[in-house]
């Protein structure tokens, strides 16, 4: 499947070239990274186990609340802090996960870099919006 639509000027070993198989297998060599990404994905996953259970339980408990009740609940410091932590960890985890998906399926390098930038910025923006909204509600 991967032989199609892979031509890219940044590809040093284009299909049909005469480079040796070993040169192709070595590619650009090892980047010496990847472990940090792998570790952070695990750390955020562990944190999301209690946080996501807390989120579902809270949403059930407040399923029938009106807007005023929700505002009172979200204004409590413990709720604000927990939910702000949820946003940071959730969107961090999402950023790491979506990055892997993009790297898996997008092979044209410049397109891939562009999408990765968008993924990172959107994740950080969502994280910021969530955290600041919680702070706003807690301090108002």
């Amino acid at each position, binding site marked *: *499947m*991967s*032989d*199609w*639509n892979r031509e890219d000027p940044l590809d040093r070993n284009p299909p049909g070239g005469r480079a*040796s*198989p*070993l040169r*192709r*297998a*070595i*590619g650009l*060599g*090892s*980047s*010496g*990274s*990847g*472990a940090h*990404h*792998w*570790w952070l994905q695990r750390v955020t996953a562990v944190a999301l186990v209690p946080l996501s259970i807390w989120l579902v339980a809270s949403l059930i408990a407040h399923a029938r609340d009106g807007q005023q009740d929700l505002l009172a609940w979200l204004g409590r410091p413990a709720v604000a802090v927990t939910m702000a932590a949820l946003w940071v960890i959730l969107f961090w985890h999402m950023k790491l996960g979506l990055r*892997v998906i993009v*790297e*898996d*399926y997008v*092979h044209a390098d410049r397109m891939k870099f562009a999408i990765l930038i968008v993924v990172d910025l959107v994740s950080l923006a969502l994280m910021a919006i969530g955290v600041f909204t919680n702070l706003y509600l807690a301090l108002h």
Partner: protein
Amino acid sequence: MLIRSSKQVSRWRRPRRFPVPPASGTSPASRIEQGKTWPEPQGATRVRHLRIFRYDPESGNNPRVDTFAIDRDKCGPMLLDALIKIKNEIDPTFAFRRSCREGICGSCAMNIDGTNWLACIRALDEMNEPATVYPLNNMDVVKDLVGDQAHLFAQLHSIKPWLRTRTPAPANSERLQSPEERAKLDGDYECILCFCCTSGCPSHWWNGDRFLGPAVLLQAHRWLVDSRDEATDERLDELEDPFKLYRCHTILNCTRTCPKGLNPGKKIAEIKLMIQQRRS
């Protein structure tokens, strides 16, 4: 169904393939066409049908799927027996690799009824009717069931699968191992490099140019745990890469399909743990 051994053939027959368009993402030269149906054997009571991928590089045509009919009473019990019978008696141009016919050389690995296995140890009785036979997945096809493995062996070459030492060899003896140290190679050294796992790994389908794949990573593990090897540091440095190693997403098609009952998925997890160990 609970799988206790990779030797079990799943009874779950449907769906037989993922719901993707038959020609999705393939180059025009890779599209598979309707092939030829070869004549039924005369006077046979037990007939087995095999739908086999064919590609003739000299014809200039696209690959196709031919249907062969085999008289089970005049054929040995294994798929390899049927393939040899086809080559001997029906179509002498049919090409496939085989050597030992007892599951130790790894030559006759192919995609059988949708999963990768060795033709010599897959009984015809365990196969679908009609059975489907394709070459190992995601390889440039040289002819019929023969795929070009140059890239896979180059990937193996790239991890330097040989003893790397700094201490000179002892003058009057070999480099010795205790029985416990030797036992660490169990589950690694049995690999016959048939590449059933690598060619069945979706991560290797999408990023086979950079991801080393389960078979090669299993070999990398084999040299990491060898007590005589003195290049563990360099080996881990060379593996730590988002693509070479971490493209493994623990899908575990490798462990599911290994015809030798090995566990490449587990060994790759152990490499990741080794890298984590030295970081913290």
